[in-house]
């Protein structure tokens, strides 16, 4: 479990996903919002066809930390909630599973937005 090769797999798989993202940026000149949405929907798709869990147990953080993992937990949350709660699960499942991430991102952005001042961007 704690062997060093786990970190190697995490590094290589995480790096590969970002590498593919960079290829997309160079080839299509996509903005970061489109990149995020594309990878997120890819994660939703992977989870929907049941491929995400086997990949995730092998790559661990290599696929959990990229936004693919965010999309996958949206889809997995919806799937599990539908199984346990029925129709209500369609509405609650996805956001319930990702609530921690969204709330943290909004909260920290708010706090640091109050504390810090914007740097002028240099192009």
């Amino acid at each position, binding site marked *: 479990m704690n062997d060093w090769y786990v970190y190697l797999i995490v590094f290589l798989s995480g790096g590969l996903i970002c590498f593919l*993202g960079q290829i997309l940026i160079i080839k299509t000149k996509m903005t*970061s919002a489109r990149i995020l949405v594309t990878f997120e929907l890819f994660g939703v798709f992977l989870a929907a066809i049941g491929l995400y869990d086997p990949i995730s147990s092998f790559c661990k953080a290599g696929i*959990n930390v990229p936004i693919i993992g965010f999309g996958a937990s949206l*889809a997995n949350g919806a799937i599990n909630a539908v199984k346990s709660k029925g129709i209500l699960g369609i509405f609650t499942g996805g956001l319930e599973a990702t609530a921690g991430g969204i709330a943290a991102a909004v909260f920290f952005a708010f706090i640091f937005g109050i504390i810090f001042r914007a740097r002028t961007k240099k192009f």
Partner: protein
Amino acid sequence: MQDKIRNERYNKYVEAKIAKTHAWPSLFNSFWVGGLICTIGQLFNDILLLSFPNMSTQSAWAFTLIFLIFMASFLTGLGVFDKIGAFAGAGTIVPITGFSNSIASPALEFKNEGIIFGMCAKMFIIAGPVIVCGTVASMIVGLIYLFI
């Protein structure tokens, strides 16, 4: 006819003015920075599980993502994240740090337009599409699983 020539000339001018991203160094940088961020996440997750053995793997992952989100918005506030982002490209956008930065960065930038309509509203200028598309897609998936 003249319009066409003018348009072509203009497109060439734009091509020349756009900052060239050199393909290979940026690909290499996005690879190792992205890999490093994922490795930091794995390391944090493992340390968390070692220090709190009865924590479930699911909540350990949630804490890991919250930690990475915290670091990304903190570094965005310090102004460091933009520099790493310019260097690494997709290496910082594709991990959850990019999601965090996409909320924190407009929050800082639009602060001077007021707290409510500046900061709170513009926060979701990039993250909004991510949340909307993700929610809709997850509901479609849930709907499909309801019927099979």
